[in-house]
Each structure stands twice: as C-alpha cells, then as structure tokens.
C-alpha cells in the first residue's frame, strides 16, 4: 500500500513538472501580453515594452522558467501581474493568496455539490434499476438525460429565475466574506450548490443504474435471488456493493473536475472561486497566476483520483470474497 502511494506521488510530481513546462510555453504563446491587457487603448509599443520589461518578460523564456521553478521549490509562487507594482505602488498580491482564497470557495462548493449529487443521484439510480423497464424507469432515465445535456449556465439561470426572481426565497448574490457568517453563506450558496448538484446527480444516477443492472445480471446475484433473499436485500446488499466501483470512479472524476472550479456557475453567481479566478487571470495574461491555478486544479484532480483508487483497492477484497 505504502509502496503504491509513494509510486503514485512520484508519478504525480513528474506529471505536474511536465505540465508546468507545457503551460509556461503555452501561456506565453497566446497573443497579447500582460501589458496589452493592462493598457488597453493606451498600449503603444513603447509603453508595452516598458511595462513588459518591468515584469521581467523581456528575458529569455528558459531563464524565466527556471526563475519561476526556483521560487516554487521554496514555496514562492510569485506575485500577480494584474496588480503588480506600478509606479512604485506596492499593490502586489502574492499568487499563493489568490490560490488559497479560491480554494476556500471552490472546495466547499465542489464537495457540497457532489454530496448533493450523490444524495439525489444514488437513490434515484437504484430505484431506476429496480424498476427496470417500467414507466418510472423511463421517466427517470429521460430526466437524467435532460440533466446531463443541460448546460450548467442554463440550470443556474433557471434556478435564479424561479427561486430568486419569482419566488424571492433565496439570494443569488453571495456575501463578500463566506466565512464571516456561515449560516448566511450557506443560504446564499444554496442555488449554486443546487445547480451543481442537479447536473451531477444526473450523471451519478445514470452510472448507478447502468452499473447496478450489469451487476444484477451476474450469476451470483441470480443465485442469491434463487436462495430466496428478498429483492431489496439482493440489490442493496449484494449487487450495490460491487456495482459501487464504477460509480465511485465516476464520482471521483466529477469531483476532480469540480475542484477545477465550475467556471460558469462561479461567474453566474459572482463566486470568487478557482474557476472564476482562472478566467480573469487568463484574460489579464497574468502568467504566474494562470500557472499556479492550473497546477492547483491538476493537483486536486490527481489527489482525488488517487484517493478513489485507494478506496477501490479496499473494496476489492470484498469482491474477491463473494466470488
């Protein structure tokens, strides 16, 4: 087990290193620069050259990368270029602060969204599987299809329209400091979490139904049924535990994706999470911030999948046992 974890961590580190190099080259290859984003209609060639030189962007790329890597190794991710010192003004914000602030919003949002997705999707998927072929199964599958095909933006907007505009029950504006009043924040986060939860519930429900149906078709389940076990026991005790593996994989993938920040939902509700920060940073060509944000999201994704794999291994003996 330990050996596996060590191997995986080393593999993750190597992946992140390669990713950082590719990112570094890609971002700088984009047209425009921090200077042109900053200066807009004032972006005369002279001013652009001056500002880019201030940011050290006139140095050779390899040198810039090594400088950045050197900083990262010591835990220094640099300063955001969007607010970096201009005219001697110390308005620099360290990139690490942006990352931490973004995580404080995106992590709870992702976990709560996923939790809701599982609470809704898992039972619905089980019911659909148990009533396979009946009209209720067809309706559930249709709704799941609808949920998966609907873009996040649309669900978010729909929920705002119904619960905020029309019924006035829930706020669509999130309070500035999420941790100041957790109860108020939770109420404000209801609509974003609901948006994420509903869409992902559809994916979880579908995967649950499919996986469960496959497992139910296996011989050992038929055997359990033949031995007289009630249907619910057959499904919940025997089939579900084993069907859970692919469901878990899907959940892990979804959560990893969510940790990348649901950009659209964050933008719609004005939530300062990782996704929205990335959107802003790319627009600003804020190179160090983009670099750190993408690497953070990649790390989150790798971490979640590592945990999923470890849980998978723990479940494995259970499968081996019943066969």
């Amino acid at each position: 087990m330990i050996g596996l974890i060590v191997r995986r961590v080393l593999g993750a580190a190597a992946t992140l290193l390669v990713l950082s190099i590719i990112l570094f080259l890609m971002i700088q290859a984009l047209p425009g620069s921090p200077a042109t984003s900053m200066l807009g209609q004032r972006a005369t060639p002279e001013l652009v050259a001056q500002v880019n030189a201030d940011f050290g962007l006139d140095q050779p790329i390899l040198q810039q990368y090594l400088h950045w890597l050197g900083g990262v190794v010591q835990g220094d991710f640099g300063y955001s270029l969007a607010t970096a010192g201009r005219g001697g003004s110390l308005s620099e914000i360290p990139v690490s602060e942006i990352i931490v602030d973004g995580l404080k919003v995106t992590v709870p949002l992702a976990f709560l969204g996923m939790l809701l997705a599982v609470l809704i999707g898992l039972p619905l998927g089980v019911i659909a599987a148990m009533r396979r072929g009946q009209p209720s199964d067809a309706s559930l599958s249709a709704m799941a299809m609808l949920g998966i095909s609907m873009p996040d933006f649309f669900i978010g907007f729909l929920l705002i329209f119904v619960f905020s505009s029309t019924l006035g029950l829930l706020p669509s504006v999130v309070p500035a400091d999420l941790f100041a009043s957790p109860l108020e924040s939770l109420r404000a986060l209801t609509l974003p979490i609901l948006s994420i939860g509903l869409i992902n519930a559809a994916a979880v429900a579908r995967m649950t139904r499919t996986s469960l149906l496959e497992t139910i078709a296996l011989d050992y389940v038929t055997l359990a049924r033949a031995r007289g076990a009630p249907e619910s026991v057959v499904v919940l005790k025997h089939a579900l535990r084993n069907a859970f593996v692919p469901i878990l994989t899907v959940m892990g993938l979804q959560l990893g994706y969510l940790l990348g920040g649901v950009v659209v939902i964050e933008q719609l509700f004005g939530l300062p999470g990782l996704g929205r920060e990335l959107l802003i940073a790319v627009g600003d060509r804020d190179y160090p911030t983009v670099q750190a944000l993408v690497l953070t999201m990649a790390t989150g994704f790798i971490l979640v999948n590592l945990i999923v794999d470890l849980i998978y291994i723990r479940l494995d003996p259970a499968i081996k046992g019943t066969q």
Partner: protein
Amino acid sequence: MRVNWNIGLSLAALLVVSTMALAACGRSVDKGTETGERSSGDLTSMSGIESGGTLRVGFSEALVDLDPHTSQSLQDAQLLENIYRGLTRLKSPDDPEPVGDIAESWEVSDDELTWTFQLRDGITFHDGTPLTAADVKYSIDRIKDPKTVATAASDFDPVKKVEVVDARTIRFELSKPYSILPYVLQIPAWSAIIPKGSGGTVGTKPNGTGPFEFDSQVRNTSLSLKRFDGYWEPNLPRLDGIEFIYLPEENARINALRSDQVDMIDAVPLAQASSVFSDDSLSAIQFESSWVDELGLNNERKPFDQVEVRQAIAHAINRKDITEVATFGLGEPVETMVAPPSPIKVESDALDYDPEKARRLLAQAGYPDGFDMTIAPCGGGAFPEMDRAAQVIVDQLKKVGINSEVENLEAGVWADKVITKRDYDAFVCGLINGLDPDGHTYRYFTTDGAFNFSGYKPPAKLDELLERGREVADPEERGRIYSEAWDIINKDAPWIPLYNVPGVVAAQPDVRGYQPFPEFNLRYETVGFAGSR
C-alpha cells in the same frame, strides 16, 4: 401505499419544461422608442433625503487597481472617485463646467503661461493629515513621471513645472497656453491628489480627500467604503457607507436589483432598458452621455490609405440604421466624435449615406469590384453595442461590393493587434472620457497625437487648429475652431463617427440624490435614502 411514480415524474418533467418556457417568455425584449432623456421615479430628486444607511450597488466590473493614477478602466475611476478628488470637478450634470474642489479659485497670467491656484482651507486626507500645496505638487509630478505609467500623463504634457508658492498656493508653469487645464484637473481618479510620498502605499492603503474612505475589499467580489466624517463639504456625504458588489453578468445584475439584493445598478444593459422603465417597483433614469462609438480605419494599410476608399466607406454606411440596431433605438446618430452634451457647440456634417457615390469613389480609387476586409470590435464582448454595429456595417458594405467579416478578439488581443502592432483593417470602438472636444479629438488625429493608432496623417491646417483649440479660452471661438477641424476630419474620414450611447441607471424607489453626469461620474456624496434604512 405505493406512490405513483409515473404521475409524479411526469408532473416534474412538465414543471421543468413549463418553467423553461416561462423563462423564455418573461424576457421579451421591446425595441426602445425613447431616445435622449427620460426618468421614472425620483432617483435624481434632491429632496426628502435622510442621513444614514448603506447603499448596496450592483457594479458591472471588479476593481482592478486601487492606485488612482495608474488605474486604467473607466469603472476603476468611477469607484475611486468616491475616495479621491482633484483640484477641480464638474459642477453638475446640466452644467458640466469645471469648478473648484480642492482648489477654491484660480487665476491665469496675461501671457496665459502661468496658472495660480488657491487651495481651500480645512481639507484633510482620510488619515487626518491636512492637505497642503506640497501634496498637489507631488501628485502632478507623479502623474507626469514616465515611470508611473499614469493614465492621464499625456493630458499634462503642456505643464512644464509645478511650484509650491506657500501652503495654500500652487503654481503651474506651462510651455504653451492650455485653456483646458481646469478640465484636465477634474478627470476622476486619474488626476487625483494623493498625500506627498504616498506613491508606494496608495495601492494598498488608499488615502484621499473624497467623501468616502476605503473600508475593505474582497478581490473580485466587493468593495466597502464608509463615510469620511472629515469631508470638507458641509452635511455631506449622506450615506454611512457604500457596498459595491461586482456582478459582471448582466442578467445576474438586473436580477439582484429586482430581488432587492442591491439598491442600485450602475449599468443597465440597453436590451433591458424598456422593461426597467415599465417596472413600477423600480426607479430609473436614462441620460445623454459622452460615449460615442466609431468605425476606425487603418490609414497606413492598403486600400484605406487612399482617401477615396475611406470616403466610400463613409458614404456606404447608414448610421441611422446602425444606431437603431446597436442601441435598440435608444441612442442617437452623431456627425462627429465630440460628445453631444459638451458645453462647446461643435457643428460639422459627416459624409452622408450615398451608396451610389460610394461605388463611384471605389471605382475611381481602382476598386470597381470592391475588396475584402475585417472589422474588429473592441472590448472582447464587453460592449454588445459595438458587436451589433459591426454586423450592420458588414451588411451595408456588402451592398457596395466590399466583403467584410467581423473578427471577435479578446480585449487584450485587440489592444495588441490594433494599438501595439497596428495589424488590422478596421475596428469598432468608442470613446467615453472627454466632454471637452479636445478629449475626443487631439490625441487621435494630430500628427503627434499620443493615440493616433490609425496612422492618420493630418494636413498642417488640422494640427494648427487642434493646437489652438486647447490654447484658446473663449467657448464660442473654440466652437468655431472645432467645427472647422471636424469638417476636415470628416472629409478625410480616418474614423467614421457612428452613434451616441445613453447611460441607463436603475435603483430601488427610495434611492434619491443621484447625479447623472454625462461621463458616468459616480459621485455618491449626494445620494441617500428617502426615509430611514
């Protein structure tokens, strides 16, 4: 008892579908038929305002830079104008002439090269330190210093030296007469007066003389200001504080106002203007602004280097139709780039809509079969008016044989291509700051103009006129100068002026005291609630 799933689920599906349909219907867009000014409710009323309360504003863009001199966008300047003020300010929306703010009065020497300003007594910065002439000198020097990369730097070019005469008196020495100096000194945020030596901290610890002081901010989320008790104007500000909440997404912003989660929104999308005015639960105001959009051409690139081709394009477009589509009928076509509410009356006619003449000119220039070109609206999608205008222009140009295509670029990429590299055919963009005709003319059309990025080569007469325009003080003479200047510019057609965009602001019915300045100044010292909040 078995729950009947089938019916339950079918009902749920029906609910989803019908809500979707309702959502689509609820947002019908009326084409506006009202141009110019209109208002519903008492948003601009100055009576019955109580002291106190915190105003929640749904604001369209997050603050980027707290440093007033280097802040780049109009939205930053709007926010910072509540924290920082300058030597002068505009009197009122109906009378937008510069009057004293930090300066009490000023006089000009006979040779017009020396301006002496008397500063008001009793003005302090937010941290309590009294303001003196040394702070003014420091601020202007900092703006002019190339290392600052200040936004208003080029506006102070004719200022040679700033001298402290005594604690209450400051002297500006100019290299040539500059009648618009008081106007330049009022530019919100970019001409702000900051404490001496505070250049290194002003980006993190704001300290100004404005009616509100900085309280706190959450990056990309909100900005909180609180009343400055030491503000020099008596009985102002009225509010205890302002909370700016950034809601860049248009629908989210409107929704926040409708559901009473904010008290006011600064920029109502034109598509929603009609529904906001017909909503009895909201106050709204539409006002004439200084915002003018144009079609710009790359004068250094074939075939736009030929004046006949530029004139042909000018004759090919029908600005009335463009205005109707771009501004939902709420704006007005313009003949020059000069802001319509400008106190200086400028009269000139842009080339008229005449597709036949356009074809003849193209043939004359050697392009009887037209040519291909791209048009790039600026702003990266932030200005839907420009995107719509560009589409109409494409249709109109087609009718004279010019095949054009709209090129949508990110804001930074647009700046890179158009301003830095000058690698473009044509663009649609706009100018806001600049009620004075100089603001929308000098920089763009003189030989040495700081932002003459269309590469226009003006005749000597135009350079001469525009230099004189910023030296002469008499408003009538300036009107004549700029009218003559724009006759020349319109005939050469380096840019083609299109339309003027109105400002639309909406608020809860108990918000009063808002001043709709044409340049979108957001001065909140007079704003307050009718009845306590």
